[in-house]
């Protein structure tokens, strides 16, 4: 945890410097007649981020914050496995929705999570995995008229649109 604290502070400091650099593409000072330039706000706030990370680093050196005293592991084997299985699952859900659309991806994601991570029975898994996309479709596409991406499954939805509209 102690090592993670300083590494994170370092990475965040780099992020702040990048944001400062990026903000300085626009005027960061006072423009006569126009007021503070477009880069003024993000530049000085990124500078604030940088100062905070330096402060965090000082606290780390003085061992003042709880994570800088902790000897626990930052990500133990459970945490890492969870991040891979759950975080990876969500990443896959978004990636697959580019191909199969939201509804296809949701179906697969729910089967993966409920059946393989949750170890629920097939009837429970399938009833939820099928009901969710159907309800979502009725709510978003039909009731709210917010069209969610359908990827290559688009043709399957055309008859449904004909039916509802």
């Amino acid at each position: 945890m102690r090592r993670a604290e300083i590494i994170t502070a370092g990475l965040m400091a780099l992020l702040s410097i990048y944001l400062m650099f990026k903000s300085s593409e626009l005027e960061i000072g006072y423009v006569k007649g126009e007021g503070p330039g477009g880069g003024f706000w993000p530049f000085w706030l990124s500078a604030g981020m940088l100062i905070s990370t330096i402060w965090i680093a000082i606290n780390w050196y003085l061992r003042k914050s709880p994570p800088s005293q902790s000897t626990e592991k930052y990500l133990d084997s459970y945490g890492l496995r969870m991040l891979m299985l759950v975080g990876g699952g969500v990443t896959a859900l978004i990636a697959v929705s580019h191909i199969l659309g939201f509804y296809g991806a949701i179906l697969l994601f729910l089967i993966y999570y409920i059946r393989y991570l949750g170890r629920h029975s097939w009837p429970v898994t399938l009833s939820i995995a099928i009901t969710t996309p159907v309800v979502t479709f009725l709510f978003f596409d039909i009731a709210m008229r917010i069209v969610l991406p359908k990827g290559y499954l688009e043709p399957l939805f055309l008859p449904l649109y004909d039916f509802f509209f």
Partner: protein
Amino acid sequence: MEILGHLSDGIFTALEPLNIALMLVGVALGLFIGAMPGLGSVNGVAILLPATFLVPPTSAMIFLAAIYYGAMYGGAISSITLGIPGASTAVATTFDGRPMALKGRADLALVTAAVASFVGGTVANVLFTAFAPPLAQVALDFGDPEIFALMLLAFATFIGLGGDDIPKTLFSICFGLVMAAVGLDIMTGEPRLVFGDITGFMHGINFLVLAIGVYGIGEMLWTIDSTRGEMTMTGAVLTVRGILRAIKETAKGWRGMTIGSFLGFFVGILPAAGATPGSLMSYGITKMLDKHPESYGKGNINGISAPESANNSASTGAMLPMLTLGIPGSPTTAILLGGMVIWGLQPGPLLFANQTEFVWGLVGWFYISNFFALIVNLAFIPLFIWMLRMPFTVLAPMIFVLSIVGGFAATQDMHDIWLMLLFGIGAYLLRKLDYPVAPAVLAIVLGPIAEPKLRQSLLFSSGDPMIFLERPIAGPITVIAIFLILLPLFNLIWKKMKPKPAPSL
């Protein structure tokens, strides 16, 4: 007396059978739309505006008012049950609503939210009835420096009273404010912070992308990790008696309700401020005035009643500039204004003079809509609690799905979904190191309001920051804000001065 006559006419119109039916349907629809992360009252009102052409204008306006109220109540539901704010106005409700639900008192949290919303709405309606024209005048005295000073105060309460690691809180606030600046600079029109020239950054980062990322994805990962996956929501009791008991307990949240109702109404009146800053500030101030600020964020009932009464109160307050001056205070009121124009009403200073009957009738419908919203909301609470009793391995993937779909519905751009995932994983990793995430969400919501106010104020004063201290209203607010920011420093000095320091934890 004439006002009361029109008001009672409005109330009687609202009690006609067709109007009651429309109101019940409107409130229920609004409740569900509001509860859905990514959709808020603005979506509900906008989408159902055309549907109102089927009924007479009066009934249509009643229907819209009902949806509006329903959605305002609904925002709290996902904040409490899922920990994801249903709308920006309900961000502050997650701070204490979620911890209370995790303690097994979701029923109390939901009832408190409903009752507080009702109290806030009612107080606002009464204030509206009594003081509409003079208040509109006061609101006009609030210029850019005053509104910026209010924003500063909102952030100051987080630093001074947050109880979290100060540099990390500061980092979180600055990060949120910088993220709010991504996209086209609204004052010069120049693109800024367009990372890697990806066009998706051009339209800026919607606050929901950060909020759903942090609260939907990040919070879920953190919960699974910290409970080692053996997470069970302690089943809340589902009895009529339980709900009645909860209604009695709600009285303990009186302090938050009082502050929220009055402060929310006033912030709501300010042009461009509205319900979101109103609810966040009420939360901050209630916490500040409490004897035990450390109990906030852990399920304090006042932490739910303050923002919930404030956001309803502010929504009614936002109607005031719309009706008296023709300036809509929020996106939803802008759409309502559009609706009024369609029905041949000319909003603006003359509306109050020429259309008194309509204006007070409308206020009368607000009273009734607010009441129905309370009843319908209380009736649906068992359903929301039932959702919480699902096994966590079923609830978790549903929340992920809802986050992704809700995030998409808000911005309709896959780019934002990826960004949401990035924020979610980032928030999880930072949260493990005690970085508070709520200030970042607060910052991205208030950033787009605060930045132009700051820049316009400085332009006005030719770059002299003293403008925030010299103006009669802005001055005191800024001084309080600076005091709060320095409060941790004073505490430190005070502790050092004491002969025997308290043992460090």
